[in-house]
Protein backbone atom coordinates (compact mmCIF):
# COMPACT_ATOMS: atom_id res chain seq x y z
CA UNK A 1 0.00 0.00 0.00
CA UNK A 2 1.46 3.33 -0.99
CA UNK A 3 1.09 6.11 1.51
CA UNK A 4 1.65 9.15 -0.74
CA UNK A 5 -1.93 9.63 -2.01
CA UNK A 6 -3.24 9.59 1.56
CA UNK A 7 -0.74 12.22 2.62
CA UNK A 8 -1.89 14.27 -0.35
CA UNK A 9 -5.53 13.98 0.75
CA UNK A 10 -4.63 14.98 4.29
CA UNK A 11 -2.67 17.95 3.01
CA UNK A 12 -5.48 18.97 0.68
CA UNK A 13 -7.92 19.12 3.58
CA UNK A 14 -5.44 20.93 5.80
CA UNK A 15 -5.00 23.66 3.21
CA UNK A 16 -8.66 23.68 2.21
CA UNK A 17 -9.70 24.49 5.75
CA UNK A 18 -7.68 27.68 5.79
CA UNK A 19 -10.01 29.16 3.16
CA UNK A 20 -12.94 29.79 5.50
CA UNK A 21 -11.69 32.47 7.86
CA UNK A 22 -14.93 33.83 9.28
CA UNK A 23 -16.20 30.35 9.89
CA UNK A 24 -12.96 29.61 11.63
CA UNK A 25 -13.09 32.53 14.07
CA UNK A 26 -16.71 31.82 14.83
CA UNK A 27 -15.82 28.26 15.68
CA UNK A 28 -13.27 29.50 18.19
CA UNK A 29 -15.64 32.09 19.59
CA UNK A 30 -18.42 29.60 19.91
CA UNK A 31 -16.28 27.11 21.83
CA UNK A 32 -14.95 29.85 24.12
CA UNK A 33 -18.50 31.01 24.85
CA UNK A 34 -19.58 27.49 25.60
CA UNK A 35 -16.61 27.12 27.90
CA UNK A 36 -17.33 30.36 29.76
CA UNK A 37 -20.96 29.39 30.22
CA UNK A 38 -19.95 26.16 31.94
CA UNK A 39 -17.24 27.97 33.85
CA UNK A 40 -19.73 30.48 35.25
CA UNK A 41 -22.26 27.77 36.03
CA UNK A 42 -19.74 25.77 38.02
CA UNK A 43 -18.50 28.86 39.79
CA UNK A 44 -22.07 29.46 40.91
CA UNK A 45 -22.48 25.80 41.85
CA UNK A 46 -19.23 25.68 43.83
CA UNK A 47 -19.86 28.97 45.63
CA UNK A 48 -17.43 29.02 48.54
CA UNK A 49 -16.72 25.30 48.51
CA UNK A 50 -13.08 24.34 47.96
CA UNK A 51 -13.73 20.83 46.79
CA UNK A 52 -16.79 18.73 46.11
CA UNK A 53 -16.28 14.97 46.34
CA UNK A 54 -12.53 15.65 46.26
CA UNK A 55 -12.81 17.52 42.96
CA UNK A 56 -11.60 21.12 42.92
CA UNK A 57 -12.97 23.89 40.75
CA UNK A 58 -9.69 23.98 38.86
CA UNK A 59 -10.06 20.29 37.99
CA UNK A 60 -13.55 21.00 36.66
CA UNK A 61 -12.20 23.88 34.58
CA UNK A 62 -9.45 21.63 33.23
CA UNK A 63 -11.97 18.96 32.32
CA UNK A 64 -13.93 21.48 30.26
CA UNK A 65 -10.88 23.00 28.58
CA UNK A 66 -9.44 19.64 27.56
CA UNK A 67 -12.66 17.96 26.49
CA UNK A 68 -14.03 20.97 24.61
CA UNK A 69 -10.62 21.67 23.11
CA UNK A 70 -10.23 18.09 21.95
CA UNK A 71 -13.84 18.24 20.76
CA UNK A 72 -12.82 21.06 18.43
CA UNK A 73 -9.94 19.01 17.09
CA UNK A 74 -11.87 15.77 16.70
CA UNK A 75 -14.46 16.64 14.13
CA UNK A 76 -15.19 13.54 12.09
CA UNK A 77 -17.15 14.48 9.00
CA UNK A 78 -20.31 12.48 9.68
CA UNK A 79 -21.60 13.10 6.18
CA UNK A 80 -18.57 12.08 4.15
CA UNK A 81 -19.93 8.75 2.92
CA UNK A 82 -23.62 9.79 2.94
CA UNK A 83 -22.70 12.78 0.78
CA UNK A 84 -21.02 10.53 -1.76
CA UNK A 85 -24.06 8.25 -1.78
CA UNK A 86 -26.50 11.13 -2.22
CA UNK A 87 -24.80 12.59 -5.25
CA UNK A 88 -23.83 9.22 -6.69
CA UNK A 89 -20.11 9.95 -6.76
CA UNK A 90 -19.54 6.88 -4.57
CA UNK A 91 -19.61 4.77 -7.74
CA UNK A 92 -16.51 6.49 -9.16
CA UNK A 93 -14.86 6.68 -5.74
CA UNK A 94 -15.01 2.91 -5.42
CA UNK A 95 -13.27 2.47 -8.77
CA UNK A 96 -10.21 4.44 -7.70
CA UNK A 97 -7.05 2.46 -6.96
CA UNK A 98 -6.89 3.63 -3.36
CA UNK A 99 -8.78 2.54 -0.28
CA UNK A 100 -11.92 4.60 0.33
CA UNK A 101 -11.68 4.02 4.07
CA UNK A 102 -8.03 5.06 3.99
CA UNK A 103 -9.08 8.23 2.29
CA UNK A 104 -11.78 8.90 4.90
CA UNK A 105 -9.14 8.66 7.61
CA UNK A 106 -6.59 10.72 5.69
CA UNK A 107 -8.99 13.60 5.01
CA UNK A 108 -10.08 13.66 8.61
CA UNK A 109 -6.52 13.60 9.88
CA UNK A 110 -5.79 16.62 7.67
CA UNK A 111 -8.78 18.47 9.15
CA UNK A 112 -7.80 17.54 12.67
CA UNK A 113 -4.21 18.67 12.24
CA UNK A 114 -5.51 22.03 11.09
CA UNK A 115 -7.90 22.23 14.05
CA UNK A 116 -5.16 21.30 16.48
CA UNK A 117 -2.94 24.17 15.44
CA UNK A 118 -5.46 26.87 14.61
CA UNK A 119 -8.32 26.09 16.96
CA UNK A 120 -7.13 24.10 19.94
CA UNK A 121 -4.09 26.26 20.66
CA UNK A 122 -5.95 29.61 20.57
CA UNK A 123 -8.78 28.27 22.74
CA UNK A 124 -6.30 26.74 25.13
CA UNK A 125 -4.38 30.00 25.44
CA UNK A 126 -7.54 32.07 25.96
CA UNK A 127 -8.71 29.71 28.68
CA UNK A 128 -5.24 29.56 30.22
CA UNK A 129 -5.00 33.32 30.61
CA UNK A 130 -8.59 33.94 31.73
CA UNK A 131 -9.48 31.07 34.01
CA UNK A 132 -6.24 29.14 34.42
CA UNK A 133 -5.80 25.43 34.06
CA UNK A 134 -4.65 22.75 36.45
CA UNK A 135 -1.00 21.96 35.71
CA UNK A 136 -0.39 18.43 34.42
CA UNK A 137 0.58 15.84 37.01
CA UNK A 138 4.01 15.37 35.41
CA UNK A 139 5.91 15.11 32.16
CA UNK A 140 5.21 11.38 32.08
CA UNK A 141 1.48 12.16 32.31
CA UNK A 142 1.69 14.63 29.46
CA UNK A 143 3.21 11.99 27.18
CA UNK A 144 0.58 9.42 28.15
CA UNK A 145 -2.12 12.07 27.82
CA UNK A 146 -1.14 12.62 24.19
CA UNK A 147 -1.23 8.89 23.44
CA UNK A 148 -4.58 8.53 25.14
CA UNK A 149 -5.97 11.60 23.34
CA UNK A 150 -5.00 10.07 19.99
CA UNK A 151 -6.76 6.87 21.03
CA UNK A 152 -9.79 8.91 22.09
CA UNK A 153 -9.84 10.39 18.62
CA UNK A 154 -9.78 6.84 17.26
CA UNK A 155 -12.83 5.94 19.33
CA UNK A 156 -14.75 8.99 18.18
CA UNK A 157 -13.75 8.42 14.57
CA UNK A 158 -14.76 4.77 14.55
CA UNK A 159 -18.18 5.62 16.02
CA UNK A 160 -18.68 8.12 13.22
CA UNK A 161 -17.42 5.57 10.70
CA UNK A 162 -19.88 2.89 11.83
CA UNK A 163 -22.80 5.32 11.93
CA UNK A 164 -22.04 6.60 8.45
CA UNK A 165 -22.26 3.07 7.09
CA UNK A 166 -25.99 2.98 7.81
CA UNK A 167 -26.33 5.43 4.91
CA UNK A 168 -26.22 2.45 2.53
CA UNK A 169 -29.65 1.47 3.80
CA UNK A 170 -31.20 4.67 5.06
CA UNK A 171 -30.03 7.32 2.54
CA UNK A 172 -30.91 10.13 4.94
CA UNK A 173 -28.99 9.68 8.18
CA UNK A 174 -29.18 13.22 9.56
CA UNK A 175 -31.45 12.07 12.38
CA UNK A 176 -29.24 9.16 13.42
CA UNK A 177 -26.10 11.30 13.34
CA UNK A 178 -27.84 13.95 15.44
CA UNK A 179 -28.95 11.43 18.03
CA UNK A 180 -25.45 9.90 18.11
CA UNK A 181 -24.01 13.34 18.86
CA UNK A 182 -26.48 13.84 21.71
CA UNK A 183 -25.15 10.66 23.34
CA UNK A 184 -21.56 11.76 22.85
CA UNK A 185 -22.18 15.27 24.19
CA UNK A 186 -23.97 14.13 27.30
CA UNK A 187 -21.96 11.03 28.18
CA UNK A 188 -18.40 11.95 27.21
CA UNK A 189 -17.93 14.46 30.00
CA UNK A 190 -17.61 17.49 27.77
CA UNK A 191 -20.81 19.07 29.13
CA UNK A 192 -20.97 17.54 32.60
CA UNK A 193 -17.80 16.23 34.23
CA UNK A 194 -18.27 12.50 34.68
CA UNK A 195 -17.24 12.76 38.35
CA UNK A 196 -20.61 14.34 39.02
CA UNK A 197 -22.74 11.83 37.14
CA UNK A 198 -25.16 9.79 39.26
CA UNK A 199 -23.68 6.43 40.26
CA UNK A 200 -25.98 4.32 38.13
CA UNK A 201 -24.94 6.25 35.03
CA UNK A 202 -21.31 5.67 35.97
CA UNK A 203 -22.11 1.95 36.08
CA UNK A 204 -23.72 2.01 32.65
CA UNK A 205 -20.90 4.15 31.23
CA UNK A 206 -18.37 1.39 31.91
CA UNK A 207 -20.00 -0.62 29.16
CA UNK A 208 -20.04 2.20 26.61
CA UNK A 209 -17.23 3.82 24.63
CA UNK A 210 -18.18 7.40 25.59
CA UNK A 211 -15.91 7.91 28.57
CA UNK A 212 -12.94 6.70 26.49
CA UNK A 213 -13.14 9.72 24.21
CA UNK A 214 -12.21 12.70 26.39
CA UNK A 215 -12.47 11.61 29.99
CA UNK A 216 -9.64 9.05 29.98
CA UNK A 217 -7.16 11.65 28.64
CA UNK A 218 -8.44 14.18 31.22
CA UNK A 219 -7.93 11.74 34.07
CA UNK A 220 -4.43 10.92 32.87
CA UNK A 221 -3.57 14.60 32.57
CA UNK A 222 -4.74 15.29 36.11
CA UNK A 223 -2.86 12.30 37.47
CA UNK A 224 -5.99 10.64 38.81
CA UNK A 225 -4.94 7.20 37.61
CA UNK A 226 -2.09 4.93 38.69
CA UNK A 227 0.19 3.33 36.11
CA UNK A 228 -1.75 0.06 36.04
CA UNK A 229 -5.02 1.93 35.62
CA UNK A 230 -3.60 4.03 32.79
CA UNK A 231 -2.50 0.91 30.92
CA UNK A 232 -5.91 -0.67 31.52
CA UNK A 233 -7.86 2.39 30.37
CA UNK A 234 -5.77 2.79 27.22
CA UNK A 235 -6.26 -0.89 26.51
CA UNK A 236 -10.03 -0.34 26.83
CA UNK A 237 -9.75 2.51 24.34
CA UNK A 238 -8.03 0.20 21.86
CA UNK A 239 -10.67 -2.49 22.39
CA UNK A 240 -13.41 0.02 21.60
CA UNK A 241 -11.65 1.25 18.47
CA UNK A 242 -11.23 -2.30 17.15
CA UNK A 243 -14.73 -3.42 18.06
CA UNK A 244 -16.56 -0.44 16.61
CA UNK A 245 -14.35 -0.39 13.55
CA UNK A 246 -15.10 -4.07 12.88
CA UNK A 247 -18.84 -3.41 13.12
CA UNK A 248 -18.44 -0.51 10.70
CA UNK A 249 -16.34 -2.62 8.38
CA UNK A 250 -18.93 -5.40 8.40
CA UNK A 251 -21.60 -2.88 7.39
CA UNK A 252 -19.25 -1.43 4.79
CA UNK A 253 -18.82 -4.81 3.09
CA UNK A 254 -22.54 -5.57 3.25
CA UNK A 255 -23.46 -2.09 2.12
CA UNK A 256 -21.39 -2.12 -1.05
CA UNK A 257 -23.29 -5.14 -2.30
CA UNK A 258 -26.52 -3.35 -1.59
CA UNK A 259 -25.48 -0.03 -3.04
CA UNK A 260 -27.99 1.56 -5.35
CA UNK A 261 -26.83 4.73 -6.99
CA UNK A 262 -29.60 7.10 -7.89
CA UNK A 263 -28.69 8.83 -11.11
CA UNK A 264 -25.07 9.68 -11.72
Amino acid sequence: MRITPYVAYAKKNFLGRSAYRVDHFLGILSTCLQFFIFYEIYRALYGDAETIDGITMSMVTTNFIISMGLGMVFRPNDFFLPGKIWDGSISTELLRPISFKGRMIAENVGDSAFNLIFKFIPVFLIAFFTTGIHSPAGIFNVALFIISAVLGYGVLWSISFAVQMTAFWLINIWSIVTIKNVFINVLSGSMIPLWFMPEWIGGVLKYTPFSSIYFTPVQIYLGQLGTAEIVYKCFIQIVWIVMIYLIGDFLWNKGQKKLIVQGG
Partner: protein
Amino acid sequence: MNDTLHLMTVYSKTTARAWFQYRVDAVLRSLAVFARESTGIIVIYFTLLKFNSLNGWNIYELLFLYSLIFLTYGIMIIFFTGLRDFGNMVREGSFDRFVLRPRGILFQIIFVNSDWFAAIGHGGLGITLFLISAGKVGVHWNIYNALYYLFAVIGGVLIQGAVFLFIATLNIYLIETGSIKELLYWNVRKFAGYPISIFNKGVQFLMIYIMPYAFVNYFPAQFLLRKEDMSQYPEIYLYLTPIVGVGMYLLAYAFWLYSLKYYKSSGN
Protein backbone atom coordinates in the same frame (compact mmCIF):
# COMPACT_ATOMS: atom_id res chain seq x y z
CA MET B 1 -59.66 39.09 2.58
CA ASN B 2 -61.48 35.85 1.83
CA ASP B 3 -59.08 35.30 -0.99
CA THR B 4 -56.10 35.79 1.33
CA LEU B 5 -57.51 33.27 3.80
CA HIS B 6 -57.97 30.80 1.01
CA LEU B 7 -54.38 31.31 -0.10
CA MET B 8 -53.19 30.78 3.46
CA THR B 9 -54.96 27.43 3.67
CA VAL B 10 -53.62 26.26 0.33
CA TYR B 11 -50.07 27.24 1.27
CA SER B 12 -50.30 25.55 4.67
CA LYS B 13 -51.65 22.36 3.12
CA THR B 14 -48.94 22.08 0.49
CA THR B 15 -46.24 22.82 3.07
CA ALA B 16 -47.50 20.15 5.46
CA ARG B 17 -47.76 17.69 2.59
CA ALA B 18 -44.22 18.37 1.44
CA TRP B 19 -42.76 18.04 4.93
CA PHE B 20 -44.61 14.85 5.80
CA GLN B 21 -44.18 13.09 2.48
CA TYR B 22 -41.72 10.62 3.97
CA ARG B 23 -43.42 9.63 7.18
CA VAL B 24 -40.72 7.56 8.86
CA ASP B 25 -38.17 10.22 8.10
CA ALA B 26 -40.49 12.93 9.43
CA VAL B 27 -40.95 11.12 12.73
CA LEU B 28 -37.21 10.44 13.03
CA ARG B 29 -36.31 14.03 12.24
CA SER B 30 -38.73 15.50 14.76
CA LEU B 31 -37.36 13.05 17.30
CA ALA B 32 -33.78 14.02 16.47
CA VAL B 33 -34.52 17.75 16.88
CA PHE B 34 -36.23 16.94 20.16
CA ALA B 35 -33.21 14.92 21.33
CA ARG B 36 -30.68 17.51 20.19
CA GLU B 37 -32.50 20.30 22.00
CA SER B 38 -32.88 18.12 25.09
CA THR B 39 -29.10 17.93 25.48
CA GLY B 40 -28.98 21.09 27.57
CA ILE B 41 -31.89 19.87 29.70
CA ILE B 42 -30.31 16.49 30.38
CA VAL B 43 -27.09 18.21 31.39
CA ILE B 44 -28.95 20.51 33.79
CA TYR B 45 -30.90 17.59 35.18
CA PHE B 46 -27.80 15.52 35.97
CA THR B 47 -25.93 18.52 37.32
CA LEU B 48 -28.78 19.41 39.65
CA LEU B 49 -29.04 15.83 40.89
CA LYS B 50 -25.59 16.45 42.29
CA PHE B 51 -25.82 20.09 43.36
CA ASN B 52 -29.51 20.60 44.29
CA SER B 53 -29.67 24.24 43.26
CA LEU B 54 -28.09 26.79 40.96
CA ASN B 55 -28.00 30.25 42.52
CA GLY B 56 -31.17 29.42 44.43
CA TRP B 57 -33.04 27.88 41.51
CA ASN B 58 -34.04 24.25 41.89
CA ILE B 59 -34.40 21.79 39.02
CA TYR B 60 -38.11 22.43 38.36
CA GLU B 61 -37.63 26.17 38.36
CA LEU B 62 -34.77 25.80 35.88
CA LEU B 63 -36.87 23.56 33.64
CA PHE B 64 -39.68 26.09 33.80
CA LEU B 65 -37.21 28.81 32.80
CA TYR B 66 -35.96 26.67 29.92
CA SER B 67 -39.45 25.69 28.71
CA LEU B 68 -40.25 29.24 27.64
CA ILE B 69 -37.38 29.34 25.14
CA PHE B 70 -38.45 26.17 23.40
CA LEU B 71 -42.14 26.95 23.43
CA THR B 72 -41.67 30.41 21.91
CA TYR B 73 -39.15 29.14 19.36
CA GLY B 74 -41.47 26.28 18.37
CA ILE B 75 -44.33 28.69 17.70
CA MET B 76 -42.08 31.25 16.03
CA ILE B 77 -40.56 28.79 13.57
CA ILE B 78 -43.99 27.76 12.22
CA PHE B 79 -44.28 31.28 10.86
CA PHE B 80 -40.69 32.30 10.30
CA THR B 81 -39.01 29.34 8.60
CA GLY B 82 -38.98 31.43 5.45
CA LEU B 83 -37.00 34.12 7.24
CA ARG B 84 -34.58 31.58 8.69
CA ASP B 85 -33.84 30.35 5.17
CA PHE B 86 -34.13 33.78 3.58
CA GLY B 87 -30.40 33.93 2.86
CA ASN B 88 -30.67 30.91 0.57
CA MET B 89 -33.64 32.43 -1.24
CA VAL B 90 -31.68 35.58 -1.95
CA ARG B 91 -28.54 33.72 -3.01
CA GLU B 92 -30.41 31.40 -5.36
CA GLY B 93 -32.51 34.25 -6.66
CA SER B 94 -35.79 32.47 -5.85
CA PHE B 95 -36.76 35.53 -3.81
CA ASP B 96 -37.42 37.30 -7.12
CA ARG B 97 -40.54 35.22 -7.60
CA PHE B 98 -42.02 36.58 -4.37
CA VAL B 99 -41.34 40.13 -5.41
CA LEU B 100 -43.29 39.66 -8.63
CA ARG B 101 -46.40 38.08 -7.11
CA PRO B 102 -49.41 40.27 -6.26
CA ARG B 103 -49.29 39.63 -2.52
CA GLY B 104 -47.37 41.09 0.41
CA ILE B 105 -43.83 39.77 0.37
CA LEU B 106 -43.65 39.04 4.08
CA PHE B 107 -47.04 37.33 3.89
CA GLN B 108 -45.73 34.96 1.25
CA ILE B 109 -42.50 34.23 3.10
CA ILE B 110 -44.42 33.45 6.25
CA PHE B 111 -46.93 31.11 4.67
CA VAL B 112 -44.97 29.43 1.92
CA ASN B 113 -42.83 27.31 4.21
CA SER B 114 -42.90 25.98 7.77
CA ASP B 115 -40.27 23.73 9.26
CA TRP B 116 -42.63 21.36 11.04
CA PHE B 117 -39.85 19.16 12.38
CA ALA B 118 -38.33 22.09 14.21
CA ALA B 119 -41.76 23.23 15.37
CA ILE B 120 -42.65 19.81 16.75
CA GLY B 121 -39.17 19.20 18.17
CA HIS B 122 -38.81 22.55 19.93
CA GLY B 123 -42.48 23.13 20.71
CA GLY B 124 -42.94 19.57 21.94
CA LEU B 125 -39.97 19.93 24.23
CA GLY B 126 -41.29 23.26 25.52
CA ILE B 127 -44.70 21.76 26.30
CA THR B 128 -43.14 18.69 27.92
CA LEU B 129 -40.95 20.81 30.18
CA PHE B 130 -43.87 23.05 31.05
CA LEU B 131 -46.02 20.07 32.01
CA ILE B 132 -43.25 18.59 34.14
CA SER B 133 -42.45 21.82 35.96
CA ALA B 134 -45.56 24.02 36.07
CA GLY B 135 -47.20 22.17 38.97
CA LYS B 136 -44.03 22.03 41.03
CA VAL B 137 -42.71 25.57 41.00
CA GLY B 138 -45.23 26.92 43.49
CA VAL B 139 -47.12 29.03 40.99
CA HIS B 140 -50.77 29.41 41.83
CA TRP B 141 -52.32 29.14 38.37
CA ASN B 142 -55.25 31.53 38.24
CA ILE B 143 -56.69 33.46 35.31
CA TYR B 144 -54.42 36.42 36.04
CA ASN B 145 -51.23 34.33 35.88
CA ALA B 146 -52.44 32.42 32.85
CA LEU B 147 -53.11 35.66 30.98
CA TYR B 148 -49.69 36.96 31.95
CA TYR B 149 -48.15 33.73 30.66
CA LEU B 150 -50.05 33.98 27.39
CA PHE B 151 -48.85 37.54 26.80
CA ALA B 152 -45.31 36.59 27.78
CA VAL B 153 -45.32 33.79 25.21
CA ILE B 154 -46.64 36.11 22.51
CA GLY B 155 -43.98 38.66 23.45
CA GLY B 156 -41.28 36.00 23.36
CA VAL B 157 -42.40 34.82 19.94
CA LEU B 158 -42.30 38.40 18.66
CA ILE B 159 -38.84 39.06 20.11
CA GLN B 160 -37.36 36.00 18.42
CA GLY B 161 -39.32 36.72 15.25
CA ALA B 162 -37.96 40.27 15.20
CA VAL B 163 -34.41 38.97 15.46
CA PHE B 164 -35.01 36.60 12.55
CA LEU B 165 -36.62 39.35 10.51
CA PHE B 166 -33.76 41.71 11.27
CA ILE B 167 -31.10 39.18 10.28
CA ALA B 168 -33.06 38.22 7.16
CA THR B 169 -33.20 41.88 6.17
CA LEU B 170 -29.42 42.10 6.39
CA ASN B 171 -29.33 39.60 3.51
CA ILE B 172 -30.51 42.35 1.22
CA TYR B 173 -27.24 44.17 1.87
CA LEU B 174 -24.91 41.27 2.54
CA ILE B 175 -25.13 38.03 0.63
CA GLU B 176 -23.76 35.85 3.42
CA THR B 177 -25.21 36.26 6.92
CA GLY B 178 -24.94 32.73 8.27
CA SER B 179 -22.12 33.72 10.57
CA ILE B 180 -23.88 36.83 11.88
CA LYS B 181 -26.87 34.71 12.75
CA GLU B 182 -24.65 32.16 14.44
CA LEU B 183 -23.02 34.91 16.45
CA LEU B 184 -26.08 36.97 17.36
CA TYR B 185 -28.70 34.34 17.70
CA TRP B 186 -27.46 30.85 18.45
CA ASN B 187 -24.49 31.79 20.59
CA VAL B 188 -26.47 34.15 22.77
CA ARG B 189 -29.19 31.58 23.08
CA LYS B 190 -26.75 29.19 24.72
CA PHE B 191 -26.79 31.45 27.78
CA ALA B 192 -30.54 31.75 27.87
CA GLY B 193 -31.32 28.46 29.55
CA TYR B 194 -29.79 29.64 32.82
CA PRO B 195 -30.74 32.40 35.23
CA ILE B 196 -28.83 35.37 33.81
CA SER B 197 -27.82 36.46 37.29
CA ILE B 198 -25.05 33.82 37.36
CA PHE B 199 -23.21 35.44 34.44
CA ASN B 200 -20.91 38.44 34.50
CA LYS B 201 -22.23 41.96 33.94
CA GLY B 202 -21.24 42.05 30.26
CA VAL B 203 -23.26 38.97 29.40
CA GLN B 204 -26.20 40.26 31.44
CA PHE B 205 -26.11 43.57 29.57
CA LEU B 206 -26.05 41.72 26.26
CA MET B 207 -29.03 39.59 27.21
CA ILE B 208 -31.15 42.42 28.54
CA TYR B 209 -30.42 45.29 26.18
CA ILE B 210 -28.86 43.97 22.98
CA MET B 211 -30.26 40.51 22.31
CA PRO B 212 -33.07 40.74 24.82
CA TYR B 213 -33.42 37.04 25.50
CA ALA B 214 -33.90 37.87 29.15
CA PHE B 215 -37.37 39.11 28.23
CA VAL B 216 -38.19 35.85 26.47
CA ASN B 217 -37.72 33.68 29.52
CA TYR B 218 -35.90 35.14 32.52
CA PHE B 219 -38.19 38.03 33.41
CA PRO B 220 -41.46 36.23 32.63
CA ALA B 221 -40.29 33.28 34.74
CA GLN B 222 -39.30 35.70 37.51
CA PHE B 223 -42.77 37.26 37.49
CA LEU B 224 -44.21 33.87 38.30
CA LEU B 225 -41.44 32.50 40.53
CA ARG B 226 -40.09 35.60 42.31
CA LYS B 227 -36.63 34.25 43.04
CA GLU B 228 -34.25 36.28 45.15
CA ASP B 229 -31.86 37.20 42.36
CA MET B 230 -34.58 39.41 40.82
CA SER B 231 -33.69 42.10 43.35
CA GLN B 232 -30.77 43.30 41.20
CA TYR B 233 -33.06 44.27 38.30
CA PRO B 234 -35.79 46.94 38.12
CA GLU B 235 -39.20 45.54 39.01
CA ILE B 236 -40.73 47.04 35.87
CA TYR B 237 -38.80 44.57 33.67
CA LEU B 238 -41.24 41.88 34.76
CA TYR B 239 -43.96 43.53 32.74
CA LEU B 240 -42.08 44.61 29.64
CA THR B 241 -41.98 41.41 27.56
CA PRO B 242 -45.01 42.15 25.33
CA ILE B 243 -43.89 45.75 24.84
CA VAL B 244 -40.32 44.75 23.98
CA GLY B 245 -41.75 42.14 21.60
CA VAL B 246 -44.08 44.52 19.75
CA GLY B 247 -41.50 47.30 19.74
CA MET B 248 -38.72 45.12 18.36
CA TYR B 249 -40.97 43.60 15.78
CA LEU B 250 -42.18 46.97 14.53
CA LEU B 251 -38.59 48.21 14.32
CA ALA B 252 -37.48 45.12 12.41
CA TYR B 253 -40.50 45.43 10.12
CA ALA B 254 -39.73 49.07 9.38
CA PHE B 255 -36.13 48.12 8.62
CA TRP B 256 -37.42 45.40 6.30
CA LEU B 257 -39.79 47.73 4.41
CA TYR B 258 -37.08 50.35 4.10
CA SER B 259 -34.50 47.84 2.86
CA LEU B 260 -36.70 46.16 0.28
CA LYS B 261 -36.34 49.25 -1.89
CA TYR B 262 -32.66 48.46 -2.21
CA TYR B 263 -33.11 44.83 -3.17
CA LYS B 264 -30.97 43.82 -6.11
CA SER B 265 -31.30 40.34 -7.47
CA SER B 266 -28.25 38.12 -7.34
CA GLY B 267 -29.68 36.11 -10.25
CA ASN B 268 -28.06 36.02 -13.64
